[in-house]
């Protein structure tokens, strides 16, 4: 019955598209009177909208007659809202002047609620990193970017959001990574391949903190990171960038292992082109790093293509293909602290060849002013082999398909419903021939009780099957609310649950490496979590302050442990609670200087062992300042992460000097010039030459310098 009502709603909206009007216009800079490219024009409480072309013009068709609030937003300009009346069968023309802003405009976020909302309207803690900062820092991988996000810390390649993950040797991420909305975890080990993401085509990265399985299913137990790439431009453009970097000599001569300086270099070229209905982007990238450690170099090729075809102003198809080919040496652990930049003797020469690609197509169709849907089909292939004896190799194919409907029956409700299917096939010398599949449905309603109070309720049911094991079901609900005390201040609360199905590598690994034998455990249960948060956000013209306190409880955390026969096995062993508080401040006293800081206090407690959780710091602090004056810019980043107090016994056996750890104090600096077409960036990373480890037995990057030049034609 409900299906019929739903179909009726869809068809009634389709057939009621008569007597409609249009909105057209031009957006210009209030000071220079020049057209502004890329301004978002949204008709509030509808799904209709457009963006300005390079001439500053836009057109929105098929608008039902009536009065609407129009919202215009663009980076670097104040948001403007005004009312417009659309008349039947008429084109309403407007010219809008946007004032350049003297303070940071709040970014738009899609990940937290699966729909576009500005940051201050989001009911859960969310952080956004925008492309300009990535470009200025000359970050080569997105894990380098995440090292400066409040509440986030990296343990080598493993991302922790508020202490969610700890360190699990690359198996099974407790943070879900999305690439333009598509899950991007490998099918075999369930790990994130950071280097596969083309950083210079990123528009923004959204980091949602806390369990998010009610919207995203497995792996979103500690949070969700969504990497959103730049839109293809409706114009022809050629852009290239090259960089050259050098590692300094180690601070202590005892650590010198190479007779010469070590370098890293590379670059990319990208081409945008368009026809009437099609706009596309091709990006090719080469990266080489000789490594500051012995046996750590890599040679990498990335290819990224994006194609957008507009069937009409209300429907389009996005096609993405992203490819990585890499040959890298593997530095597992240091030989000892005396030889901190040399690997253990048995690891010299260890190498991995890998080839990964992700491809997906996403179709979006707006059926009416209040109804649209998105359908996506994607495939992620991950293939690697090493040079061990006997050789380890693995090939995983992960298929994901999702359909989502967004419907606004009235001005108070915003409904989202969807279905998500996955199939995963693995053939590996370590895990055998395995497969898994899952099906999930989700539903969310955002209810606007008044101008000041909105709540959101949602639930997702996942049913998944891991190889020959029985089906397991997971129901994850969520609730969140946000109350605007006044225009500048709001309070929010959210509660949600999360789960993580065991990765194939955790359930089926059977291998011996580095003197340790790992045996399979197909009876693993999924990890579960519940997150609760209360927060408040103050947004004034020159300062934004975000405060939150959170409480996360985890059950059945999967950890590698020694079994009675001395072999390692992954088991559900840990129940844990992580409580804490976080403050973020963004301050712009004058228009050209911006200062921000973030502090997170964590109390990560292992309830099973009545001790502090392994690999979790108690304090995370970041500060950064950016100065932009005319075409010059400079910036300074500082991060402090307290020493994690516990590591597991296993690593103490395998890694010499595993207990040698210190708190992290790192300062990075940058400066450069940014003209319309030419950009020059200079960076000094780890300027104080501070020696520390993120994971035991692995010295983090020593001081290094790089210079990059970007030019656009």
């Amino acid at each position, binding site marked *: 019955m409900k299906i019929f009502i739903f179909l009726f709603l869809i068809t009634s909206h389709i057939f009621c598209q008569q007597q409609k009007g249009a909105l057209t216009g031009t957006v210009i800079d209030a000071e220079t009177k020049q057209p502004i490219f890329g301004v978002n024009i949204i008709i509030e409480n509808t799904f209709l909208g457009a963006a300005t072309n390079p001439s500053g013009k836009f057109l929105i068709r098929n608008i039902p007659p009536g009065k609407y609030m129009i919202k215009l937003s663009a980076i670097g300009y104040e948001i403007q809202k005004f009312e417009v009346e659309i008349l039947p069968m008429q084109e309403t023309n407007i010219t809008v002047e946007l004032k350049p802003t003297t303070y940071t405009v709040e970014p738009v976020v899609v990940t937290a609620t699966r729909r576009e909302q500005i940051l201050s309207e989001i009911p859960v803690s969310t952080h956004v990193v925008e492309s300009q900062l990535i470009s200025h820092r000359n970050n080569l991988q997105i894990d380098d970017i995440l090292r400066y996000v409040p509440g986030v810390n990296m343990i080598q390649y493993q991302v922790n959001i508020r202490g969610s993950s700890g360190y699990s040797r690359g198996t099974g991420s407790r943070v879900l990574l999305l690439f333009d909305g598509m899950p991007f975890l490998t099918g075999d080990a369930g790990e994130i391949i950071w280097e596969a993401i083309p950083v210079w085509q990123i528009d923004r990265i959204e980091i949602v903190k806390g369990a998010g399985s009610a919207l995203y299913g497995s792996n979103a137990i500690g949070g969700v990171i969504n990497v959103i790439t730049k839109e293809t431009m409706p114009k022809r453009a050629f852009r290239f960038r090259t960089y050259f970097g050098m590692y300094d000599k180690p601070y*202590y001569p005892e650590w010198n292992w190479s007779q010469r300086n070590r370098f890293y270099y590379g670059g990319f070229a990208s081409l945008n082109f368009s026809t009437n209905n099609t706009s596309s982007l091709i990006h090719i990238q080469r990266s080489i790093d000789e490594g500051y450690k012995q046996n750590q170099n890599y040679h990498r090729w990335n290819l990224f293509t994006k194609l957008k075809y507009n069937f009409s102003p209300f429907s389009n198809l996005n096609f993405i293909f992203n490819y990585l080919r890499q040959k890298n040496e593997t530095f597992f652990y240091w030989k000892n*602290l005396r030889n*901190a930049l040399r690997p*253990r003797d*048995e690891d010299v020469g260890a190498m991995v060849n890998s080839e990964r690609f992700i491809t997906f197509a996403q179709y979006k169709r707006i059926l009416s002013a209040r109804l649209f849907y998105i359908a996506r089909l994607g495939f992620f292939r991950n293939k690697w082999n090493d040079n061990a*004896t006997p050789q380890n190799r693995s090939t995983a194919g992960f298929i994901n398909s999702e359909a989502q409907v967004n419907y606004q029956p009235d001005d108070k409700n915003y409904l989202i419903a969807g279905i998500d299917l996955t199939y995963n096939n693995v053939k590996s010398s370590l895990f055998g021939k395995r497969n898994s599949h899952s099906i999930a449905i989700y539903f969310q309603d955002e209810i606007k009780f008044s101008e000041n109070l909105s709540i959101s309720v949602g639930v997702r049911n996942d049913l998944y099957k891991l190889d020959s094991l029985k089906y397991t079901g997971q129901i994850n609900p969520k609730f969140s609310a946000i109350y605007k005390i006044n225009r500048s201040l709001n309070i929010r609360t959210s509660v949600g649950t999360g789960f993580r199905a065991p990765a194939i590598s955790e359930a089926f690994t059977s291998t*011996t490496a580095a003197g340790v034998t790992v045996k399979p455990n197909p009876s693993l249960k999924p990890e579960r979590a519940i997150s609760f948060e209360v927060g408040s956000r103050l947004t004034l013209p020159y300062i934004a302050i975000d405060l939150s306190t959170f409480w996360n409880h985890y059950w059945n955390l999967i950890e590698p442990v020694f079994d009675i026969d001395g072999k390692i096995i992954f088991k559900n062993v840990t129940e844990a609670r992580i409580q804490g508080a976080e403050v973020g401040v963004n301050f712009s006293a004058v228009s050209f200087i911006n200062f921000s800081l973030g502090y997170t206090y964590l109390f990560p407690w292992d309830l099973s062992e009545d001790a502090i959780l392994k690999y979790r710091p108690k304090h995370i602090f970041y500060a950064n300042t950016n100065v932009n004056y005319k075409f010059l810019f400079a910036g300074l980043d500082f991060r402090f992460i307290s020493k994690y107090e516990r590591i597991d016994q296993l690593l103490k056996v395998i890694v010499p000097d595993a207990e040698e750890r210190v708190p992290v104090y790192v300062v990075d600096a940058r400066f450069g010039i940014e003209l319309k077409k030419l950009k020059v960036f200079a960076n000094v990373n780890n300027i104080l030459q*501070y020696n520390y480890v993120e994971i035991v037995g692995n010295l983090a990057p020593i001081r290094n310098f790089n210079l990059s030049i970007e030019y656009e034609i």
Partner: protein
Amino acid sequence: MRVKFLLPLFLLFYSCDHGLKPPEQYEEPGFGGTVYFKGTWPDSVYDLRVVAFRNYPPQNIISEVIEGKAKFSQSLPVKVDSVKYEVSADTGKWEYVVVALQYGSNIFSDWKAIGVYDTTQNDTIPTPIYIPFGKFLRGINITCDFNNPPPQPFKFSEIIGLLITKQNESSK
């Protein structure tokens, strides 16, 4: 004024420590001791060495040898009552320390174990050693009884032959 401005920066760069640093007291890690011989020496002894492996039981020894993970001493003098030896080996656990004897001319096949480091009398499981960081472990004494040799591990002779051949190749 300028000096006041620069002073904090100067202090920032030069007063803070640099985190981890290499230890001052350090010796190349490894182990050594004395090998004692009992019983009657065989007539032909082509080579004699102490060899250490990371793992026991030795099913994975072949790959360890091929990957150069096993460590061994210089050739030891033969037909003596006892001899001191030294092996350079990395920090960490070594589960199987053995005295290997080449009894024939074929370096790939004519090897056997004649003594194992085993401090427990009630079983035949070798005693592992743990080399601490920056330490040379002394007193790893091994007794070889020609009349009562220890259990021979799987493919022992081929493994030792391969190991010595690899060493000879690398020393050329």
